[in-house]
């Protein structure tokens, strides 16, 4: 009865295959075999579509009609104004290529920041750490990243060391020709070490460039890490990301993902607790309009006892925008005394907007406290009335309430400069001046 059905490749899938065939991977830093195998997996599965449960609300096969070519290898393009990021260290990637002149990398003791190629050469274990996907992170999008990405930043913070200022990895797309950019980053923070790292995405409106990044974060015992992702890409961009994090005993990871830009964006995050008494705090913020589509899919793996995870996802949707949140907390049989909480809230400002939420619990241990909540609706009329009764005009009152709604996530960013940058995006989205 079984017949093998040849899958028909979409134009984008075919283009990606062709680009891969035209790439010289033999002398690349990454293992050629690993890259080839990833491409084969991608070709077998194709772009994920809505019949795959994890992609139910983000049908990439339909949405991604074309895949722009890999960037030209000619002269490097200028990064442009970076003054907004002056407060922290910077690793600047222009159209996928590191711009060393525009970058300012930390040089403190115990802090090593190297390119992916250098790091792979220096650390034999790194390739292994990057190649195998964590549960909940595997996807054809990640396979594409594995197949194509041979650039990125590898950051290592030694045991007990502190990164004195946040390191910002700035992905900036410039020029007028769209391209597909693939980057792979890794952050390893040693025991008792502290670091704040931010990934920033920017590019021109109206240009259909694609960015596909993957990042692996390892948080050592008792370490404290903040990882921020600020996606402010151009209106026609595609931004696809895979985030994998492993948290050691007693450590704390704060993961913030703010999405303002791109026609379509998806963050697929997988976080695993591998040591007890660790804490994960996640804050997600999406502010979208037009026909923007943003998806945050998160998998939290309580593999060991006594860990705490808290996720707060806030989505503001105007026009015909669509926001997707899928969050799954898994509590393994041994993970007693887990405290897992997830809250997702959507604010719909317009008739045509759509919010899809799928907060999931999968629990195999009995002595746990887990829960999730989900709400969606319009601005609370009672609050609006109260503000107006104090003389605040309606439009200003609305902005104030939306800012407050978003603010609960923004305020989780401890670093003042980074918090200001994200708050600035929120304020610009609302068209208001930031009240500092």
């Amino acid at each position: 009865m079984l017949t093998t059905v040849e899958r028909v490749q979409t134009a984008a899938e075919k283009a990606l295959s062709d680009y891969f065939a035209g790439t010289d991977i033999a002398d690349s830093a990454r293992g050629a075999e690993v890259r080839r195998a990833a491409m084969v997996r991608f070709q077998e599965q194709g772009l994920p579509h809505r019949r795959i449960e994890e992609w139910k609300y983000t049908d990439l096969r339909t949405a991604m009609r074309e895949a722009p070519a890999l960037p030209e290898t000619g002269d490097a393009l200028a990064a442009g104004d970076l003054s907004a990021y002056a407060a922290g260290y910077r690793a600047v990637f222009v159209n996928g290529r590191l711009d060393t002149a525009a970058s300012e990398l930390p040089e403190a003791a115990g802090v090593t920041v190297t390119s992916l190629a250098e790091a792979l050469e220096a650390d034999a274990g790194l390739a292994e750490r990057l190649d195998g996907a964590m549960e909940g992170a595997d996807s054809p999008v990640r396979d594409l990243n594995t197949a194509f990405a041979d650039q990125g930043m590898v950051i290592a913070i030694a045991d007990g060391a502190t990164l004195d200022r946040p390191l910002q990895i700035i992905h900036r797309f410039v020029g007028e020709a769209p391209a597909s950019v693939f980057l792979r980053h890794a952050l390893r923070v040693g025991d008792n070490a502290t670091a704040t790292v931010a990934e920033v995405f920017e590019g021109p409106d109206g240009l259909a460039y694609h960015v596909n990044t993957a990042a692996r974060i390892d948080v050592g015992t008792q370490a404290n890490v903040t990882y921020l992702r600020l996606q402010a890409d151009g209106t026609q961009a595609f931004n696809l990301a895979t985030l994998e994090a492993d948290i050691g005993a007693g450590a704390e990871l704060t993961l913030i993902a703010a999405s303002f830009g791109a026609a379509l964006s998806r963050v697929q995050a997988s976080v695993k607790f591998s040591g007890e008494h660790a804490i994960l705090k996640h804050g997600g913020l999406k502010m979208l309009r037009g026909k923007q589509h943003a998806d945050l899919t998160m998998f939290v793996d309580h593999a060991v006892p006594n860990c705490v995870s808290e996720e707060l996802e806030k989505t503001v949707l105007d026009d015909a925008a669509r926001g997707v949140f899928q969050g799954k907390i898994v509590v393994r049989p041994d993970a007693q005394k887990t405290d897992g909480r997830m809250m997702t809230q959507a604010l719909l400002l317009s008739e045509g907007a759509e919010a899809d939420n799928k907060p999931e619990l999968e629990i195999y241990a009995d002595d746990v406290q887990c829960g999730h909540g989900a709400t969606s609706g319009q601005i609370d009329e009672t609050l609006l009335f109260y503000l107006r009764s104090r003389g605040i005009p309606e439009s200003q009152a609305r902005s104030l309430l939306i800012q407050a709604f978003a603010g609960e996530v923004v305020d989780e960013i401890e670093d003042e400069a980074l918090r200001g940058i994200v708050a600035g995006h929120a304020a610009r989205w609302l068209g208001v001046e930031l009240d500092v």
Partner: protein
Amino acid sequence: MLEIKNLHAKVAEEDTEILKGLDLTVSAGEVHAIMGPNGSGKSTLSNVLAGKEDYEVTDGEVLYKGEDLLELEPDERAAAGVFMAFQYPVEIPGVATMTFLKAALNAQRKARDEDELSTPEFMRLVKEASTKLNVSQEMLRRPLNVGFSGGEKKRNEIMQMALLQPSLCILDETDSGLDIDALRIVADGVNQLRGGDRGIVVITHYQRLLDYIVPDVVHVMSRGRIVRSGGKELALELEKSGYAAYSEEDKAA
């Protein structure tokens, strides 16, 4: 200052009329108390004056300084100098009290074509108002009313009143949920705002508050109308005899 003539109102989308021809005149500089049993229409009156959308005025008019108050949006009423101290002030997570106060004060000034206040000026005014009402700096930093006790919320309302300096203040059951100490602080705050041209309407179920805010005129409200008006002694009389007589009187009429 405030003239209410033959006011009829109901909850939108419902048939039953709650205010049934209410008349009330408050002159500049006067303090009026409106007392009445539960269900007499007190909260409907305050909601209509504040401009809550859930209520519909079916007849009559409300004039404020000679202008039609009902025509104004809630924020326009506030800018024109009408202040409502709510019975149940809402909690607004994420909006710091200080941010809210500044937004409100400047919005009102802007509507009146006045310049926005500089931050030091604003801070000075807030400090003045908050000290009077025993509102701590810590409370001002917290999100508006979030996690405030009942007394703290009411103090915050009167503090806003002191800051915004309205011409007409309406206090809706401001005494409910207050212990005696909080009641004194709130009453002192209100008394300091008395005088000049400012009109104050105190809506309350109990006479207790009127020991501290002594009214010039007391009105008894029953079944959607003012059924009796008199001096401050009327409140004491009510304290003794209760509202039963008024419901009966009204039924007979």
